[in-house]
């Protein structure tokens, strides 16, 4: 949680020093993303460092992946709880006394505590499994695998953007997303990404050589 904590400290100092509360509602921060990116990096390393060791002490790839998945789920739940608690404190203290909305910015803010746990925790699960997937791509195909994965990501995202712009679908997509409850979007979409990444990881790990 160090990455998120550091980002929070920096943001709080900025809000306090620059008195961003007076700047109006536009002064928002996505600093909590640092926590999510840190989780991704931790899980990349969990594969590159721990998988060879785990196989060295006679665990199967499948047992390792199962363990990593259980750990990712437990950690997402624990961090989801912590984020929900921090969000409650943030609300109660009027943004830590400086009007800072850090732990659940904008649409991530839920109406009640259990929903907040799910909305904060579900993206963590997605980042954790993406990290596992990147780690496995690295172990199986080396840096070429990671570059390939990055290129594929750019192609899919960039291609989708071009397609949507070309077909002028932005308005329809905007309407569709605004019709969906943000909870469904922020819990369901990351969960679907996590499940997809887990399935791809399972397929990819089968021939990893430590």
């Amino acid at each position: 949680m160090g990455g998120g904590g550091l980002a929070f400290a920096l943001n709080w100092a900025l809000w306090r020093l620059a008195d961003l509360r007076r700047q109006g509602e536009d002064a928002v921060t996505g600093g909590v993303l640092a926590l999510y990116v840190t989780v991704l990096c931790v899980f990349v390393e969990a594969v590159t460092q721990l998988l060879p060791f785990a196989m060295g002490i006679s665990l199967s790839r499948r047992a390792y992946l199962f363990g990593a998945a259980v750990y990712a789920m437990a950690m997402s739940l624990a961090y989801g709880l912590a984020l929900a608690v921090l969000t409650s404190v943030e609300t109660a203290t009027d943004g830590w006394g400086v009007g800072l909305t850090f732990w659940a910015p904008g649409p991530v803010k839920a109406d009640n505590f259990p929903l907040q746990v799910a909305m904060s925790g579900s993206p963590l699960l997605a980042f954790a499994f993406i990290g596992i997937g990147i780690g496995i791509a690295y172990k199986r195909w080396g840096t070429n695998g990671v570059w390939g994965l990055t290129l594929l990501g750019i192609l899919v995202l960039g291609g989708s953007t071009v397609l949507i712009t070309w077909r002028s679908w932005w308005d329809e997509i905007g309407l569709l997303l605004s019709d969906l409850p943000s909870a469904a979007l922020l819990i369901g979409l990351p969960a679907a990404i996590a499940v997809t990444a887990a399935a791809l990881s399972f397929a990819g790990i089968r021939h990893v050589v430590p």
Partner: protein
Amino acid sequence: MTAVARLTDVTMRFREHTALDQVDVALEQGSITGLLGRNGAGKTTMLQVLTGHRVPTSGVVEVFGAAPYENDAVLRRISFIKEGQRHPDHFRVRDALTAAARTLPSWDGDLAGSLVREFDLPAGRKIKKLSRGMNSAVGITIGLASRAPVTLFDEPYLGLDAVARRLFYDRLLADHAEHPRTIVLSTHLIEEISDLLEHIRLIDRGRIRLDADAPSLRGSAVTVTGDGERVAAFADRHELIRTESVGRQSRAVVRLVENGHPDDPSAMGLSWEPASLQQLVVAMSLPTQGAAARVPADLEGVPR
């Protein structure tokens, strides 16, 4: 003896390279086997196949009667310590040992503790702060303390000094005497371990060139030196492994074939000495003489 692990007609091909070529091997229960061969001969690949770390292109791999690939029931009875085994950087030495203790059911904590003391390992130091030799000592400690029914060491002594290597060999022998298990030592430090071995397998270019009991191998070969024709005549009666000639003089490594009566090279005017295991292995691993003979001819054709 009962075989606990068996490779049957195993071939492992990489893109442009055949690492194992129709290998048939059986590891007997309770034996200490030396897996010898040059770098790139196929030793590591063979051990990776035995532990399910690689799946062979063709052939059958069985350990305790089942395929080891992704087989937890088999894997927990195997310990594989490979050259330069990576332990997580952020682990302390004791963390690595604790993790191994949790996954290896025959783990002996007392043995691990005594090995840590004997190798002078700092239990509280992070792995990334260890020297290369200390990292190897962590691997060796895990391998020995695992007491796994099949324990495979793949050149585990990287960076270890001669004293620490001796300590490893002594502890391995002592512990094996009390707790017999199947051990494979892949190495090219042949002389150092030749006394430990009960069985020897030489692998060269992916093929098993020698598969023999160590006692029967010791004293089974001689190096004879003398007149080329006499050396050739002596070698004809046995198995010539390799010969080198300078002028009329030849020197040959010859495996003696039992033919009912003793054959004394001295009687033929040849001087001789028993070939050590290392001499025999080196002679068998060098390029074939036909190939060696062709090299100078090719070189002669290069314009100056």
